[in-house]
């Protein structure tokens, strides 16, 4: 028995392997110190697991579940009541509405309603690397805000896509309102403006917090050589809207333009990811939307760019393409792997432990195995881009080695379905960020865009310009509104 076979049987040793296998295993273990170490770790692990104490359930867990159930029931009843009442007295309601408009009741709590978009304040810590802000920080801030000011959550809409809120309606007692405003303005990058500053509010003040979360992809969506940004809002007041931020003069993205998706754009609001690529070779980048289906692997949808920021569905491109495999180790990328001017689709999978393999879809050709050490447990990022301006797609990998600066590597496409490298690209970022690649300055060499603060629309967008020698140097920072 060799080491590989030993690894297969060892996790089930000793009680779940046949006596013959057990004997062979034991023989191998006597000779191989490495496998002996592994066997010892397995033994330690299983002995720990078998004797580990069960974590104690919080004392009031049961009562909290029941309370939460009651709260949900009350909310449902309220909705039910409103619906029934609304149906029964709709005509009366119309009359009341007119009365309401003409003679505004004095104690209507919504007189005090304030609507704001919550943008977390991102504090820059230290020099150089990007500021840290993540969902947990923001969640903690909101909880702190609520507990400190006596506010309560009146209503919330949970965005299952991100596990985060679309919006929250907070009820703040008038007596603690000024404290709330102070806390909020301290913690949020946008300020609540009081209609009448300094005046103590009576009754309850309602505040609706919206969260502008987005998914985004860069691409050459218009005819100039500068890469633009496409954004879809996945929560907040603009939920479902698609926007393009065109870049006409290298990296000014301020003027937004709505993108039109022909057909039913509500089809594309689910749990999918998107990437861009020029799949039909018309020099305009198209969109590929994909999501992971437990039974089928990755499913893709294509939206072809018709110019003027309009996209139409095209089932003809890679029609009904599903990519088999386990979603946990699958990544999908686009890029022109063979230099024919049309972007191909590639997927990354892990056929063997620690070996990530790239496969090109529309050519049915595989790259030679690209070994990416430490990628698997790194929370790392893999990107495609033409980093050396040879019109062939290269690969950029960013590992999350927390304390190393040189953790970005480039692999060059050898034009022969293999990669050479890695070449160090000198770039270090930590925290919750998005990293994207495209040619933002129009020089033919793909640059990197690093956005801090994760998926929030706000947060700094940093362009790291390719210095044409495969190193990325901080160039510009901008904000999208």
């Amino acid at each position, binding site marked *: 028995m060799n080491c590989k076979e030993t690894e297969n049987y060892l*996790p089930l040793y000793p009680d779940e392997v046949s006596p013959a296998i057990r004997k062979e295993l034991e023989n191998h273990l006597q000779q191989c110190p490495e496998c002996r170490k*592994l066997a010892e770790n397995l033994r*330690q692990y299983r002995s720990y697991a078998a004797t580990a104490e069960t974590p*104690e359930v919080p004392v009031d867990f049961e009562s909290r579940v029941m309370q939460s159930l009651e709260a949900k029931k009350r909310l449902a009843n309220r909705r039910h009541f409103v619906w029934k009442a609304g149906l029964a007295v709709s005509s009366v309601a119309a009359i009341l509405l007119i009365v309401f408009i003409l003679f505004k009741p004095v104690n209507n709590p919504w007189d005090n309603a304030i609507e704001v978009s919550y943008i977390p304040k991102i504090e820059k810590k230290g020099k150089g690397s990007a500021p840290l802000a993540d969902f947990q920080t923001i969640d903690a801030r909101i909880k702190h805000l609520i507990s400190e000011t006596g506010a309560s959550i009146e209503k919330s809409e949970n965005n299952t896509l991100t596990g985060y809120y679309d919006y929250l309606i907070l009820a703040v007692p008038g007596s603690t309102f000024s404290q709330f405003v102070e806390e909020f303005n301290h913690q949020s990058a946008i300020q609540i403006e009081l209609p009448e500053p300094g005046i103590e509010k009576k009754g309850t003040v309602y505040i609706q917090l919206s969260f502008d979360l987005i998914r985004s992809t860069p691409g050459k969506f218009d005819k100039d050589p500068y890469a633009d940004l496409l954004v879809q809002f996945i929560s907040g007041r603009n939920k479902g809207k698609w926007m393009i931020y065109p870049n006409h003069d290298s990296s000014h993205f301020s003027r937004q333009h709505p993108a039109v998706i022909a057909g039913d754009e509500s089809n594309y609001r689910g749990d999918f990811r998107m990437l861009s690529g020029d799949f039909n070779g018309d020099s305009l980048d198209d969109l590929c939307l994909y999501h992971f289906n437990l039974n089928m692997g990755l499913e893709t949808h294509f939206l072809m760019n018709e110019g003027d920021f309009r996209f139409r569905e095209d089932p003809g491109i890679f029609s009904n393409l599903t990519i088999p495999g386990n979603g946990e180790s699958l990544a999908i990328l686009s890029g022109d792997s063979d230099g024919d001017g049309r972007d191909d689709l590639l997927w990354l999978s892990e056929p063997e432990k620690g070996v990530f393999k790239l496969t090109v879809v529309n050519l049915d050709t595989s790259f030679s195995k690209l070994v990416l050490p430490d990628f698997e447990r*790194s929370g790392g990022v893999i990107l495609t881009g033409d980093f050396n301006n040879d019109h062939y797609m290269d690969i950029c990998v960013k590992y999350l080695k927390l304390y190393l600066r040189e953790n970005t590597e480039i692999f060059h496409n050898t034009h022969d379905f293999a990669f050479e490298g890695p070449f160090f690209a000198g770039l270090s970022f930590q925290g919750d960020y998005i990293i994207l690649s495209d040619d933002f300055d129009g020089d033919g060499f793909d640059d990197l865009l690093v956005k801090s603060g994760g998926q929030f629309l706000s947060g700094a967008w940093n362009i790291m310009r390719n210095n044409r020698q495969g190193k990325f140097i901080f160039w510009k920072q901008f904000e999208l509104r």
Partner: protein
Amino acid sequence: MVISTSTTKDIDEILVRNIREHGDRTAFSQLVNKYQGTVFSFCYRYTGNRQDAEDIAQDVFIKVFNKIGSFRGEAKFSTWLYSIMVNTCSNYSRWTRNKRMNEMATFPPAEKEDSPRFADFPDHSGDPEQKLLNKELGQVIQGIIARLRYQQRSVVIMKDFQGKSYEEIAGIMKMNMGTVKSTLSRGRLAVAKKMKEYLEP
């Protein structure tokens, strides 16, 4: 004389029927009381974080209550409940994963070293030195488990920590027994290999 005894299955069936037909909160409270230990400890092992475990476990029971009308009684109630538990935990993972939705890779990030995720377990064993070693080993193992792949993580926790049978796990995970066994084997191997990285200088 025939003595009639109610099996666990019977009691669950009675409680479920009372919840479905009469919205019986007391019956639901009894179910929560009975299963909270298993659900909470699974969520704790799965996330490595007490706060998250509490939130998710609570979510599991709310879902159970809301979906109880769709429980057909084809499988055991506990199997159905544990399936919801596993799904809710994997959605939690998707939650953390989707934080990096625009990134191409989908692996959970490594924890910072000072992360509070590796919380202490109560430990009442005797020898202080051994106690410390156990505690350290426990923290390392818990950290590794919370980063295993989702299916491996679920299977490893249910089999190795909760002592469930292959058959039961197959029902919960909707896998065949062979797949459960191979997932378990890969999960254990991954743990042992990672232990090597952590424990060797």
